């Protein structure tokens, strides 16, 4: 329990205080020490008549109880006179409770202008007049508390009260804005919607309810909101009959149409349930928040169009979930067989693609690079996973083009993570082209394969969007092919190829094939692709080594049946580029066009297995467990190498470790560390050996261990911070000592290794800021100052001029800075990424502010730039 809330020395005006709620507010404030102006016109509840009797009675009541009060009999429409009464008596006004009110209930049909106007004059204009008169006084004082009284009838509506509801709700808007205007001067403005049995509601409520709704239940809220202690402002509270609750706006996420999209009454009808869906909502409390979705929609730019099958805005750039897959030699061999490799085992050229014992070693048939991306896409499609905005079924999709590139030769086994994204969408009139990019990363997160799958989606175009590039690429030159190879495709080839992952029944089931309009199951396009790719590599890769493969691009022009004879025609355009096309001999139909393969000029170096190397290292490390003895030995050496630490330290620490028990001394006075007690300690730390090792490794948090009682500190607790001087000691030094201990001898010092280069982030951040300012120049208005940044570690200097227009950003220094910010590059980056706030960095001393502080308090606008 805190101290009682008191109003000693405060002056309060309560309007309509002759009876009911107002009287109750006045009595409570006065009982708590406030000097009260009891205002009451003394009229009837309909606002007729005038008498001083009721106000005088309440003043008398207050005085009887030892309080101070004066009466005022003016109408609230004459607010100046009411405030003058307060000023004449006590020369200040701290609290205004706008409570006066009357009723003129009429059904709207029977409402007269007089009924309407008088209600607005008393509730709305009256509250305005009293508040207006008190406002300059409160501003001068730098203190004020204002209460408006609204009504549930206004918030929710009530039959027969159109005049009253509208006037009452006008006060909510009044208070919303006034609370903003008063904040700087410590003038707090709140609105209550009381339900109380008063003169106005007498006769409207059943007796039992009437009794429960005593004004005594309302006034404590008024008093609390008017107290010095309260910092609530702009609030709206429902109160009465024991209920005290706060009311706020709630808004559905609603439906946002990208700008430029046609919005029709029908599109709203369609979205109606979404517009009214309160399952996801936000609570808006400021005008800026209210505008948020609109601003974001403007920032998102105009719509790129679409239709019910493809919503370009939603789909473009959409990412698919990551898919992890792995392959080994057996998958490679199966794929090679699937695309017709080694059909004659006596021709030993292809053995390297299928036989792990091949002389010179097995090699991956490089066109296998297409599989992780395609299989990831097919796998997701099978689970019904598609990108948002792509609302068509696979039955509409024709595989139009395929591109694959490897960063380096495929290893014989790998576990890959494939990240797919919708890269391009083009409107081709009747159909649409959708390009899915799929990049596959290896175990170390290094990029291995880049691919693009272009799909023609039948009947999905025609929204008037861009048609995309139309230039024909990889056209065969105007001469006879340099090389022509024929492949008779075995009748069961599709059945073999599908084992590599494309299980579509169209390629296996005769009934299904007929249902799709083919006379029998067709060969997979990518099988044809594999045949052709294999043949090109065989002819043009140096020594037929598929590792020279760099990339392939093809367009699928027609389908191939197993049993057809495939003719691959090749044109050597350079040592590194071979254009080719494929035909079916029997029908003289081009089945693959606009195709080319690129070769590496030199074989890229196979990658060193980083992950394996690390695993081995870790295994070795695990054999040498660091012990407290190693840490102490490392500290001893560190102290001897860095005599400056002892100079600053001047403290002797004793470590009392448990499990197993041991005692150590770190002598920051003498600059040594060792077992036992070698000097009288200033501080003693008690903790388990495991926790000590974790602390030293940086795996445990000292404060957490301390607060959970796992570290006990005795002695000069203030000196514990000196241990920080050891924070710089690299843990490698401890590991060295551990190894030395295990090997039973001194270890040769390791070759000095360069510390990992730190990539400064300031340039990135300021570049992003410049861009953001270009896009949203209004951002500058929020700061309106010239900021000089001195970035440290590594050093750089920046001037961000948000005062002049257009805002400017440059590296360097200025004389005209409003505010100078000094901050480490890493901390600046943390601001940019939102990991740290300016306030925390400032409190921790990591952000130094010279000059005006106010602009620095807005530094959080850097959030999201990294």
């Amino acid at each position, binding site marked *: 329990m805190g*101290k009682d809330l008191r109003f000693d020395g405060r002056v309060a005006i309560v309007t309509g205080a002759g009876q009911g709620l107002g009287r109750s507010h006045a009595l409570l404030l006065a009982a708590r020490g406030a000097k009260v102006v009891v205002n009451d016109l003394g009229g009837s509840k309909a606002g007729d008549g005038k008498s001083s009797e009721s106000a005088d009675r309440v003043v008398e009541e207050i005085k009887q109880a030892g309080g101070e009060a004066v009466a005022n009999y003016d109408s609230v429409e004459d607010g100046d006179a009411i405030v003058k009464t307060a000023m004449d008596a006590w020369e200040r006004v701290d609290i205004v409770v706008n409570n006066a009110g009357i009723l003129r209930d009429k059904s709207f049909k029977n409402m007269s202008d007089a009924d309407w106007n008088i209600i607005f004059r008393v509730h709305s204009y009256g509250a305005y007049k009293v508040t207006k008169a008190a406002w300059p006084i409160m501003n001068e004082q730098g203190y004020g508390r204002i209460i408006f009284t609204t009504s549930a009838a206004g918030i929710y509506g009530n039959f027969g009260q159109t005049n009253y509801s509208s006037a009452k709700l006008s006060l909510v808007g009044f208070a919303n804005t006034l609370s903003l205007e008063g904040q700087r001067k410590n003038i707090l403005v709140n609105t209550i919607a009381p339900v109380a049995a008063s003169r106005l509601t007498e006769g409207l409520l059943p007796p039992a309810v009437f009794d429960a709704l005593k004004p005594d239940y309302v006034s404590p809220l008024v008093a609390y909101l008017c107290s010095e202690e309260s910092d609530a402002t702009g609030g709206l509270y429902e109160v009465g009959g024991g209920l005290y609750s706060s009311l706020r706006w709630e808004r559905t996420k609603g439906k946002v149409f990208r700008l430029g999209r046609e919005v029709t009454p029908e599109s709203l009808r369609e979205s109606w349930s979404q517009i009214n869906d309160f399952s996801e909502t936000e609570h808006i409390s400021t005008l800026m928040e209210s505008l948020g979705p609109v601003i974001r929609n403007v920032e998102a730019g105009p719509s790129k169009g679409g239709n019910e099958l493809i919503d370009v805005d939603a789909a473009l750039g959409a990412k698919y979930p990551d898919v992890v897959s792995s392959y080994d030699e057996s998958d490679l061999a199966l794929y090679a067989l699937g695309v017709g490799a080694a059909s004659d085992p006596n021709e030993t050229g292809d053995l390297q693609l299928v036989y792990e014992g091949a002389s010179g070693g097995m090699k991956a048939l490089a066109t296998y690079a297409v599989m992780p991306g395609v299989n990831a896409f097919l796998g997701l499609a099978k689970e019904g996973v598609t990108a948002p905005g792509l609302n068509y079924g696979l039955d509409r999709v024709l595989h139009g083009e395929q591109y694959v590139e490897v960063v380096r030769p495929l290893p014989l086994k790998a576990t890959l993570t494939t990240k797919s994204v919708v890269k391009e969408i083009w409107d081709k009139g009747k159909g649409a082209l959708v390009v899915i990019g799929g990049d596959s990363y290896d175990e170390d997160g290094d990029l291995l394969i880049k691919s693009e799958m272009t799909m023609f989606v039948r009947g999905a175009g025609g929204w008037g969007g861009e048609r995309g590039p139309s230039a024909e690429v990889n056209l065969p030159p105007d001469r006879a092919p340099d090389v022509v190879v024929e492949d008779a495709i075995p009748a069961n080839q599709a059945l073999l190829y599908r084992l590599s992952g494309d299980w579509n029944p169209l390629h296996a089931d005769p009934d299904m094939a007929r249902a799709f309009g083919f006379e029998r199951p067709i060969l997979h396009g990518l099988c044809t692709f594999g045949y052709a790719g294999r043949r090109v590599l065989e002819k043009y890769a140096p020594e037929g080594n598929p590792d020279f493969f760099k990339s392939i691009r093809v367009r699928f022009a027609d389908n191939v049946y197993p049993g057809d004879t495939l003719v691959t025609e090749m044109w050597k355009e350079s040592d590194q580029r071979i254009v080719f096309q494929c035909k079916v001999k029997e029908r003289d139909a081009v089945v693959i066009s606009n195709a080319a393969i690129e070769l590496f000029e030199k074989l890229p170096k196979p990658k060193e297995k980083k992950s394996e190397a690390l695993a081995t290292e870790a295994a070795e490390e695990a054999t040498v467990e660091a012990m407290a003895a190693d840490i102490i030995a490392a500290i001893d050496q560190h102290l001897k190498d860095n005599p400056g630490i002892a100079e600053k330290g001047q403290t002797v620490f004793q470590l009392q470790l448990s499990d197993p028990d041991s005692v150590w001394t770190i002598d920051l006075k003498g600059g040594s560390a060792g077992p036992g007690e070698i000097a009288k*300690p200033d501080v003693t730390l008690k903790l388990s050996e495991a926790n000590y090792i974790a602390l030293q490794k940086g795996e445990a948090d000292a404060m957490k261990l301390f607060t959970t009682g796992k570290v006990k500190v005795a002695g000069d607790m*203030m000196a514990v911070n000196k241990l*920080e001087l050891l924070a710089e000691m690299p843990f490698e030094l401890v590991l060295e000592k551990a190894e030395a201990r295990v090997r039973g001898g001194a270890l040769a010092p390791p070759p000095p290794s360069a510390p990992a280069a730190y990539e400064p982030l300031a340039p990135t951040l300021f570049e992003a800021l410049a861009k953001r300012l270009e896009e949203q120049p209004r951002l500058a208005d929020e700061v309106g100052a010239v900021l000089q940044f001195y970035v440290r570690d590594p050093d750089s200097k920046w001037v961000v001029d948000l005062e002049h227009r257009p805002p400017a950003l440059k590296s360097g220094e200025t004389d005209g800075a409003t505010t100078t910010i000094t901050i480490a590059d890493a901390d600046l980056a943390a601001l940019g990424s939102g990991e740290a706030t300016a306030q925390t960095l400032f*409190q921790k001393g990591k952000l130094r502010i010279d000059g*005006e*502080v106010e602009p620095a308090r807005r530094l959080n606008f850097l959030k999201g730039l990294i």
Partner: protein
Amino acid sequence: MGRKVNVIGVGMVPFAKPGQSEDYNVMAAKAIKTALADGGVEYAEVEQAVAGYVFGDSTCGQRAVYDVGLTGIPVYNVNNNCSTGSSALMLAKQMVEGGIVECALAVGFEQMKKGALASAWDDRPNPLNLHVNVMNESQGFTSAPPAAQMFGGAGREYRWKYGTKRETFAKVNAKARRHAAKNPYALFRDPLTVDEILASPEVFDPLTRYQCCPPTCGAAAAIVCSDDFAKKKGIGNPVYIAGQTMRTDYESSFGDSMIKMVGFDMAKNAAQAVYEEAGIGPEDVDVVELHDCFTTNEVLTYEALGLCNEGEAEKFIDEGDNTYGGKFVTNPSGGLLSKGHPLGATGLAQCAELVWQLRGQAEGRQVDGARIALQHNLGLGGAAVVTMYRRD
């Protein structure tokens, strides 16, 4: 309500740097003798004595008064960190107020070692550990002196909250030095410019070395008595204590605010209680001695004492309302920043300065027509003592 309590005698010795002072009992005896002479009181008339000090073995108080007299009176030893001196004064005042004695002595002294404050007890919880936890949560722990981290951190929070410039804090010590130039009891009397103060080595941003009071040795004493006793001594219009309150930490000290952790609410509530007791608000105060252990705390204290509104200290300073010609003269003695801060003596040295001011004996630093004086003395751990003195 108890009896009116008068302060009829005060005395102090000039403060000195550690290692350059006399021993505590010598300094204390000098201060007591000066106070007795000031009030025209014989030591034999003193019925009880309260001695305040922080560093030293038990019963240093007896050892100190024994150099003045061996009358067998009760002697209490008081330890309340940096507010020890005024805590001693408050006990002596309560003895008179409650009618237990007619005349009592309060003495405070300190013989400090060099360097930042440290703990002498290694086998039990440090009494400040709750406070340190607040700081750790808010800003971590560095190798700067802990008190500077606490008051500096409160300064950071204040700067962030109200957008206060670094220079504003430096101005506080520039003012302190201006005042100290006229005070023979002050240790640091050379004037300093704001630039010089800012250029001194940084201790803990925003605090530079010239914004931190140094450890000091010294002693001060006061004689308090009833109206009857004063009359007997022929003192017609003595300085009296119009209100005095001690407050210790509230729950708010251990929340997430550094400003509150360093005692803002203790000071604010103590001041409020004093204003109520005296029936005199801050607007009627003429002169203030407040606990400027660090410049940041002086700034916070302006607001805690209600000398200006919260958040308006910068304006208050810039408009010169903290010095001669403004609304209040704060720390006419030069404060802890210029006089130094012997923990046990500080509260009684503040008392001495204010008594001189109300009697018009403050010479070159006299606040014209000073009738109402306010004293604020703060110890972390914690206790804030606020005292109002009047002379009609």
